[in-house]
């Protein structure tokens, strides 16, 4: 086979954004080796610009008609482009907020950045993976890099412990996921492409009930996916890992890694499991109910800011699942829109938490008391991000939640939407509690950490990027709600440009109308 025909078959240009990230990763590693420690002054910016160029390149590929690459192994459709964009953006912001944190902790910055870029690569490949082996390798690239990042503070026993727990739970959940995948390979008669598996399962099931094997495979696969998006009851690792690991890593795990999990969930369930649509929808209803209740209720009792954000992220994942359960075109669009807004508000919140812990060395909520007197900018930023996470108008989070709940209501999920409303009221309580702590306290009630608060200095090395990301995240969080039209049309266009979602929505609405007719007869 000659080179041109091979290259048209493989269509490698689809993964150009990933190749750009990979180049940035190699440049960071090699330059750090050659130049030495002084290189860490500019390697973060190489990584960030690589990620941003990759996002721009993703934009150029928006209307690509030949999206399938590597003989069906990778699908660069609009859905994958949006998710890859979210992951790359979250990695870029994470690098900006990690520079000062890593330097202050006395560990090597370039290694941190290269592992983070590897995790980003895994997440980006996972969003587009369309074949079992590719899915597995991408998932493990993301997971193993995340274990390493979690244990990055190797002198800190808490970081060690978090890494060990994450590794053991993560490895066992990926083994369970893999067992499900191996069953899928057998049940489909030896197919590894998701589309082929979907057709084979549909053919073998016919009009009858799906076989028990398919349901077992489905349950095992969902266990693996639910671990990645930290849905209850697969969430036990989340609070421990969030508390123990370095804060910038938590920021990436809560946005980038979670977005990759949702991308995997959509693609895998929609492409390979249309036969057991009713069943996986039912499982996700249960996961969403449990996540919303447990995440938001347990968050009430937390005293550590990082644990609070961990439980809040479990609750938020429950809200996002609403869109997946709705299964309509707008359902998927609202999920993507919510994840975009969540990216900005959650990373903004983590930026503030990092800034506070850099200046005071603590994450306890009680230590935030009276912060308003000493650092108004940090107080304002954290308040706006938390209000947005709680869904208070006119912040971006309100509009994202509104869209999600409205779509759920349209799809007839009345009970779920009511539950989501109740739990988001609960969530407002614990977000407001932090804000009240910071703002209302009298000067004499200040905590010890705030009393000895250092003078605010932005000219220390690594503080400028932190300031830039703080201000830009807070600005976007407060303005993206009112000016949400571009994001909203992007989310809608990504769903309507994705063939696999379109065909699935058509098929599922047909089957729903058939069951309606059946019930009327």
């Amino acid at each position, binding site marked *: 086979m000659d080179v041109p025909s091979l290259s048209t078959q493989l269509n490698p240009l689809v993964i150009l954004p990933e190749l750009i990230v990979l180049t940035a990763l190699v440049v960071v590693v090699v330059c750090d080796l050659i130049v030495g420690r002084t290189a860490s002054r500019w390697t973060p910016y190489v990584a960030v610009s690589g990620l941003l160029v990759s996002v721009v390149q993703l934009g150029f590929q928006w209307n690509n008609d030949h999206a399938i690459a590597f003989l069906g192994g990778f699908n660069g459709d609009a859905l994958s482009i949006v998710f890859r964009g979210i992951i790359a953006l979250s990695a870029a912001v994470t690098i900006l907020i990690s520079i000062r944190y890593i330097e202050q902790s006395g560990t090597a910055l370039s290694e941190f950045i290269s592992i983070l870029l590897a995790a980003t690569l895994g997440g980006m490949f996972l969003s587009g993976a369309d074949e079992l082996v590719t899915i597995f390798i991408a998932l493990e690239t993301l997971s193993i890099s995340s274990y390493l990042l979690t244990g990055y503070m190797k002198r800190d026993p808490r970081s060690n*412990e978090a890494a060990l727990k994450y*590794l053991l739970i993560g490895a*066992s959940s990926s*083994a369970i996921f893999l067992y499900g995948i191996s069953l899928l*390979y*057998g049940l489909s008669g*030896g197919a590894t492409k998701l589309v082929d598996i979907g057709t084979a399962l549909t053919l073998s099931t016919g009009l009858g009930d799906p076989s028990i094997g398919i349901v077992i495979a489905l349950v095992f696969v969902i266990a693996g996916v639910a671990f990645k998006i930290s849905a209850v009851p697969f969430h036990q690792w989340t609070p*421990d890992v969030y508390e123990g690991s370095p804060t910038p890593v938590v920021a990436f795990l809560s946005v980038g890694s979670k977005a990759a999990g949702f991308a995997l969930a959509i693609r895998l369930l929609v492409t390979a499991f249309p036969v057991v649509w009713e069943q996986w929808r039912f499982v996700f209803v249960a996961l969403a109910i449990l996540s919303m209740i447990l995440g938001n209720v347990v968050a009430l009792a937390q005293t550590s800011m990082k644990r609070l954000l961990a439980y809040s992220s479990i609750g938020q994942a429950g809200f996002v699942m609403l869109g997946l359960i709705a299964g309509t075109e707008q359902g998927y669009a609202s999920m993507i829109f919510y994840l975009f807004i969540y990216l900005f508000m959650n990373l903004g919140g983590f930026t503030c938490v990092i800034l506070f812990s850099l200046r005071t060395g603590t994450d306890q909520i009680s230590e935030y008391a009276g912060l308003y007197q000493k650092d108004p900018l940090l107080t304002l930023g954290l308040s706006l991000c938390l209000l947005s996470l709680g869904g208070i108008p006119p912040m971006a989070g309100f509009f994202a939640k509104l869209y999600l709940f409205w779509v759920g209501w349209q799809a007839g999920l009345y009970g779920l939407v009511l539950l989501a409303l109740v739990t988001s009221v609960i969530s407002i309580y614990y977000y407001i509690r932090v804000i009240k702590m910071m703002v209302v306290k009298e000067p004499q009630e200040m905590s010890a950490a705030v009393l000895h608060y250092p003078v605010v200095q932005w000219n220390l090395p690594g503080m400028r990027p932190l300031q830039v990301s703080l201000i830009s995240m807070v600005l976007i969080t407060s303005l993206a709600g009112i000016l949400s039209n571009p994001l909203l049309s992007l989310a809608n266009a990504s769903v309507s440009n994705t063939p696999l979602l379109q065909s699935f929505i058509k098929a599922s609405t047909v089957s729903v109308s058939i069951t309606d007719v059946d019930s009327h007869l």
Partner: protein
Amino acid sequence: MELQYFLLLAAALFCIGVYGLITSRNAVRVLMSIELMLNAVNLNLMAFSNFLDPGEIKGQVFTVFVITVAAAEAAVGLAIILSIYRNRDTVDMEQFNLLKW
């Protein structure tokens, strides 16, 4: 030989792995249990590949990938266990209780 025997063996191995995962107190033994689970997956894949997909043997290729990734995972796992042993002088899972609510 029939396909069922292989699948039963793999399922049994997987269950032993899950049992070890739940009951072991030593972190290294937990890691070994996970390896057992991955090997059950490998058996499954090999059996399916020989019986259902003898032409393209995609399952065998998959198995090679699983073995490779399992090795990487074990390496990272042992490194983390080593660093926790240096800090805490133990690998007993029940001693790791710094993080809890």
